[in-house]
């Protein structure tokens, strides 16, 4: 187990290093002066030179790369050109919204997908199954911003249960914060839950045909007991894979939903960074997201091993 974890850790650290080189290369080394790009066409040469010095663009490429990586390792992500505050502070502020939103959506997605997927697999080929498959097909096909607008229309305008957007901040208390995130989380969770339910259903149907399910039934387990006791854990590997991908996506991919609900999240920060040509923000946030994806991948790898003893390879 330790060996497996160490190997996965080393391999993912390597991916992280490669990713950092690629991001650095794309933004800083590729032809074109980042400072001139950030300032626009009408900037005077003096301003550009000042910004170059400011950004630390003087010096050799390897030295700049090392300075950038070293800064990130010590928590210094540079200073945003447009906001004039450290990027680390900006990101921390945005993560307070994006991280809970992603976790909330993921929890909802799992809570919906598990029973639905299990039900569809258990009732395979019957009306319930067809109904669920149809509904999940719709859930995947319909864009989540449309769901979002529908939710606002019903639960914020017709029924005054939730506000239509904005985020009061966690200082206002846990409940107002959660309440503001509920509609966005549902809008994000529905398509994800549809995908997850379908993956779970097909994985379960495949495991239900395995010989060990027949063995379990011969021991006297009912259909449901065999499904819960034996099929479910064997069907988890593909489900964990999808969950890991979804969390990574939710962290940064919620841009549209954040816009619909006016949430100050990470997605909007990148979007603003790009439109305002704030390369320091873009570079650092991209790297941070790569780090998040790789960290989630590592957790998923560990979860695989927890779910399947064959991956642990004791000897």
């Amino acid at each position: 187990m330790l060996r497996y974890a160490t190997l996965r850790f080393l391999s993912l650290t390597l991916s992280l290093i490669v990713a950092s080189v690629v991001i650095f290369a794309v933004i800083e080394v590729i032809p074109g002066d980042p400072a001139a790009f950030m300032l626009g066409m009408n900037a005077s040469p003096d301003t550009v030179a000042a910004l170059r010095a400011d950004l630390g663009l003087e010096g050799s490429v390897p030295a700049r790369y090392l300075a950038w990586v070293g800064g990130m390792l010590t928590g210094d992500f540079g200073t945003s050109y447009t906001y004039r505050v450290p990027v680390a502070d900006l990101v921390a502020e945005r993560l307070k919204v994006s991280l809970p939103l992603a976790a909330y959506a993921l929890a909802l997605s799992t809570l919906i997908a598990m029973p639905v997927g299990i039900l569809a697999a258990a009732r395979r080929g019957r009306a319930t199954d067809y109904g669920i498959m149809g509904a999940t097909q719709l859930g995947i096909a319909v864009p989540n911003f449309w769901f979002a607008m529908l939710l606002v229309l019903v639960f914020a305008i017709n029924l005054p249960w939730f506000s239509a957007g904005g985020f009061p901040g966690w200082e206002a208390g846990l409940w107002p914060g959660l309440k503001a995130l509920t509609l966005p989380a549902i809008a994000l969770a529905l398509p994800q839950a549809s995908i997850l339910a379908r993956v779970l259903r097909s994985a379960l149907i495949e495991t239900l045909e395995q010989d060990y399910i027949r063995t379990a039934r011969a021991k006297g387990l009912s259909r449901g007991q065999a499904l819960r006791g034996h099929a479910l854990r064997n069907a988890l590997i593909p489900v964990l894979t999808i969950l890991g991908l979804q969390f990574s996506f939710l962290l940064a991919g919620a841009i549209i939903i954040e816009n619909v609900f006016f949430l100050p999240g990470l997605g909007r920060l990148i979007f603003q960074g790009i439109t305002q040509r704030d390369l320091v923000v873009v570079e650092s946030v991209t790297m941070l997201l790569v780090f998040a994806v790789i960290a989630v991948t590592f957790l998923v790898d560990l979860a695989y091993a927890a779910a399947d003893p064959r991956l642990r390879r004791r000897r």
Partner: protein
Amino acid sequence: MIEVTDLTLGIHGTPILRDVSFDIRPGEVFGVVGESGSGKSLTALSLMQLLPEGAQTSGRAIFDDIDLLTQSERRMCALRGAEIGMIFQEPMTALNPVQTIGDQVAETLLVHGKAGRAEATQIAAERLARVGLPPEKVPLSRYPHELSGGQRQRVAIAMAIALRPRLLIADEPTTALDVTTQAQILALLKGLVTDEGMSLMLITHDLAVVAGMADRIVVMQAGQIVESGPTARVFQALSHPYTRQLFAASDHQPQRQPHVTDDPHLQMQGAVRDYHLPRRSLFGKAPTFRAVNDVTFTLRRGESLGLVGESGSGKSTLARAVLGLEPLQAGRILLDGAPVRAGDPRMQVVFQDPYGSFNPRHRVARLVAEPFHTMGHPHDADARIAEALTDVGLTPSDADKYIHEFSGGQRQRIAIARALITRPELIVLDEAVSALDVSVRANVLDLLADLQARYGLSYLFITHDLQVVRAITDRVLVMQAGRIVEEGPTERVLSAPEHPYTRDLIAAAPAIPAEWRNHA
């Protein structure tokens, strides 16, 4: 104890079983013999009410005083595992891969509410010890993938007998196992019948297995029982033609006139093949496993050479090495005096699983012509495909069909046609008849003998089945743990084995008693 009357089964309207009637007495071993598709497994699944969807049964199966065929699912759940246990053919896949063996055995007790968690674990340990897996040697915390096939079948047996059922149904319990493991599992089952007083319903295609085990047998063909009675009487009388046919096929000897020359065709000289094992520490040297250890032999032109050994003995690695698919760490392999290379048209191979070695989306013509990829399509390709199909007893028009349209025996014929297409001189047969029913196997052996005589082929016949070795080989090599431990003319090795391992193998192979064979 159980009395089955007029059991009839249809699945989605297709009749499967017709008027099957038999009874099993307390404490006896009851054999059910038949080829694949005869309905013997579905008879057992009918008793367990574990039939596939769309199954319709009629008739009666009285167990004590209740009819198993009319019980509710809830009632059957209470009976399964507690009163009737069942084990299946494939030990490799019959256990849940993500649960420890202790938990899986204990589950039988827990699901029937017969013990609390601690007590169930303790009983599981006892039952595992009873089937030959004492916890001090094989801890309860082991997972199935850490056990061998034989050990897994023992776990499956422990699960089935955890609650001391009165009837144990064993569906081909040893078919997937090596001969020595088979002998151990059969002895274990017999011991359980004696010690626990339970009845055993033993389902098998292997006449020799039931001959040594069963008190009474039924013979099934196409969903019906064609013969039944005490085992000795059935074997001695052979009153039904189908039973006679099965019996004759089980030790069929094809007519052979071998023309063995002195010309060395294939030579293996001091071959060594090592595999790397997973590293123990991150930077240490990876340990190696020597699968083939200093093997030397010569296959002469026109000869049929057998290579026997149990799984893990290295015989399949050796076969791949002969085909040029395994790099050697030492030694060399020569075909006609030159080193072998992969894809040489003079050498072809036929594997065990005919279906798995064909792409189901291609027509037979393309499947049979596959070896042309390595040697280039000849201009007369179509004629040669037709010729190869005719050679193996099929017709040229079969070239337009797909592989699923053929039976297992026909698929193996197509595999042989694929091997013949390059007009090879040497064919490696890796367990090529092991998965076939006895009567089909007899036909394929006849075909192989005929082809050898016609084309002067050399065969390297790799198998674990001594019957096959006896039927088709001139000389035999016995392989154990990567080494050849005995070599000699087949008759001599089988009748007067010198190496203790060969003696064990021959002793373990089930056989029909000689006094039951005295009829023409």
